[in-house]
């Protein structure tokens, strides 16, 4: 594996920059995580951060909405803004040579947004449209509602809120969210690709060095939703969601948990695909993945199947999850390791995935794992170690949610 240089620097206001220069690429990407995500939405105003995520790009610094968008397009910036639980996330990828100019536009967006009144309705309407569209797509709806039943509020709440909540949000309340939550302390900027470390550090310090810190924002907590449920929907398939407790990304046993889920759903030779789809033909899509918050983690599973076969699909899937503790073959673990190592190396061909990974690592771990670190952790995995994890964190006390024409019998 080629040598990896990762440079980390924390500004005096608490903004952390993580830079990974990459050779043999022309592009560079950055991922900017700014505190103020949906977990900090005011009570009964879910969607506030999501509206801000849209509104914030509608004019900044000296540029109005259209000029700003044009400027980013002219720099060839492929961009995405999304609302996370903790942060607003801004990712951008373009030619390395255009990164300084792009970063300076993002400094305007983040620090000097116009948040113009005349653009507010557009931002709200966009979120409303997207919430309505989810109602027509049972698979997406299922995963959103499964999270609500998997984590306590605010962690399980949908980042875009609900139609009722969106109706309550005003321009004033969103501006207040901006003033209260967006800040440098806790912000993370990951940059990867064809860039120079010193040049980036100078740029970031000039653009963000005088951004003043703010106190921690408060959040409204509450219970999670019912553990077992069904939502009636006039759909062709029954969509099944299952969740159970696991551990978080920063946990010392994280890679064991990752391997346990890998044995279940890591590739096409993994158990769920083999038993549910290949042997029984019960569905096209079945999978499980490890989902992590900062303080807890869960396994989230999905299967979509026609109504007549839904009960069998649920039963077989639950059985596979539970029988993991009975034993794991060494070749099953070896395949997980092989897939992980290969994808680690291939990550180095994408500046966007590196920028995202290093920012994510800093958020969860307050350090960045090199690819060699991860490879070592993966190499050290053993069957007894993974099984030990499974015994300590068995698949049980399932959260089960279905969407479709009929409810299922949940054991």
């Amino acid at each position, binding site marked *: 594996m*080629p040598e990896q240089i990762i440079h980390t620097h924390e500004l005096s206001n608490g903004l952390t920059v993580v830079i990974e220069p990459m050779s*043999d*690429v*022309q*592009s560079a990407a950055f991922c900017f995580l700014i505190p103020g995500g949906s977990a900090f939405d005011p009570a009964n105003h879910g969607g506030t951060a999501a509206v801000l995520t849209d509104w914030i790009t509608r004019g900044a610094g000296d540029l109005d909405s*259209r000029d700003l*968008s044009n400027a980013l*397009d*002219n*720099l*060839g*910036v*492929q961009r995405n803004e999304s609302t996370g639980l903790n942060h607003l996330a801004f990712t951008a*990828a373009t*030619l390395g040579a255009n990164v300084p100019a792009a970063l300076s536009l993002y400094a305007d967006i983040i620090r000097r947004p116009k948040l113009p009144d005349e653009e507010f*309705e*557009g*931002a709200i*309407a*966009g979120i*409303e*449209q997207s919430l*309505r*569209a989810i*109602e*027509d*797509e*049972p*698979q997406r709806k299922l995963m959103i509602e499964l999270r609500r039943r998997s984590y306590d509020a605010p962690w399980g709440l949908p980042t875009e809120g609900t139609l009722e909540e969106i109706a309550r949000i005003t321009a004033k309340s969103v501006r207040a969210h901006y003033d209260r939550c967006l800040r440098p302390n806790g912000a993370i900027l990951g940059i990867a690709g064809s860039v120079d470390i010193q040049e980036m550090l100078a740029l970031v310090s000039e653009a963000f060095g005088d951004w003043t810190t703010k106190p921690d924002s408060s959040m409204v907590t509450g219970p999670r939703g019912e553990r077992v449920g069904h939502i009636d929907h*006039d759909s*062709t*398939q029954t*969509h099944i969601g299952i969740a159970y407790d696991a551990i978080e990304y920063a946990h010392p046993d994280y890679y064991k948990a990752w391997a346990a889920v890998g044995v279940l759903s890591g*590739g*096409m*030779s*993994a158990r769920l*695909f*083999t038993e549910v789809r*290949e042997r*029984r*033909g*019960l*569905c*096209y*899509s079945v999978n499980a993945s490890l989902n992590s918050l900062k303080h807890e983690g869960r396994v989230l599973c999905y299967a*979509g199947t*026609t109504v007549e076969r839904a009960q069998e699909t649920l039963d077989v899937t639950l059985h596979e999850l539970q029988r993991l503790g009975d034993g794991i073959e060494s*070749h099953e673990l*070896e*395949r997980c390791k*092989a*897939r*992980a190592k*290969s994808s680690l*190396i*291939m990550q180095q*061909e*994408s*500046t966007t995935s590196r920028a995202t990974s290093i920012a994510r690592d800093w958020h969860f771990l307050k350090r960045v794992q090199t690819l060699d670190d991860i490879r070592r952790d993966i190499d050290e995995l053993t069957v007894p170690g993974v099984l030990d994890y499974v015994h300590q964190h068995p698949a049980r006390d399932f959260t089960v949610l279905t969407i479709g024409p009929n409810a299922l019998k949940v054991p």
Partner: protein
Amino acid sequence: MKFHQTKLANDLAVIAELNPAVHSVALGFFVRTGSRDETAAVSGVSHFLEHMVFKGSEKYSADDVNRIFDEVGANYNAATAEEGTLFYGAVLPEYLPQAFELFANILRPALRQEDFDMEKNVILEEIGMYDDQPSFTAYENLMQTHFAGHPLGQSVLGTKESITALSCDQMRAYHRDRYLASNVTLAVAGNTDWSQIVSLAEQHCVHWPKGTCVRATHEAKPPGGLKVITRPKSQQEHIMQMTPAPSAQNRLRFAAEILSVIVGDHSGSRLFWELVDPGLAEAADLDFNDYDGSGSYLTYLSSEPEAIADNLARIQAIFAEVNQHGIREDELEQAKNKVASRVVLRSERPTGRLSSLGGNWINREEYRSVDDDLKELRGITSRDVRELLDIYPLGATTTVAVGPLESL
């Protein structure tokens, strides 16, 4: 990056673009067969056969196939469309021989009856899954309505009825007739050497039968029409429209590509500013799709049902304006900057190069480097776009609606 090509004795085309600076290597077997090559009696067979390939060969069982791909850490999949079936994977260079041998072997699949019967359930589930995605329903119905009477109107997935009725023998015959060496292009992109590719191909593919495949590629003459699929309980209305555009062999396709970015890219385009930015629609895009001998502009609109009539009128007004006055120089320049960046970013991964490498060869027996693409892009003028619009104006020849509305 260096390009190589050869043809095996059985006419299998082998092409490669090698790049020692990347970490992986991607390979793809592009089989020139898809739903347009099917008869009504076997509707959906190309896609079903793509699944069956992974059920293994005389040498490998289905479990073997899944196991070996995972053992070598392959990032692999397959896809079937109207005119092609693609089997592809990316691996670290040291695993290329194993991944290659496996792909080459299973492309002569055993097509066992019991596997066929089991996989039929999965295909029916896949049809059910897409049925729960309104935009997919709109697309399926649009293709069928727009290309009515032309092979491009044939469904990729088939229907519940056609799949249920399909026999394993019919699939065996289809495989025998379409998976001929002369109908397959092997493309490789990334970090490996040419002599290894040639030797792997000689070793594992040279026995594939040659023979010829025919395909009718006359340009479609869409009759036009409207189809409304009413789903009273849905929240949003999904509209798709198509109108003729240049084919994959037409040089105007570059202008059509850039026009679709200017008019209908997901952000910063005319449709975006008119409909999405003010929140009138959830989505309003224009895509350009080129096929063998035909092409189409595809418009997609998703919004509240009450706003559909007004939104469609806005789209038509934009199209009329563009048809009449063409595009502005600043829009063209901006679109070029956007597309150039996409081309470069995509090219940094072997899997990103693979599809254009294979696609250019299948459609035109042509190699185009990243620099060729960038040069072509930079050379597009507003006069080219004018010429395009005079021959292929934007419009709405065919319309399909899925959602609560009973009529449009």
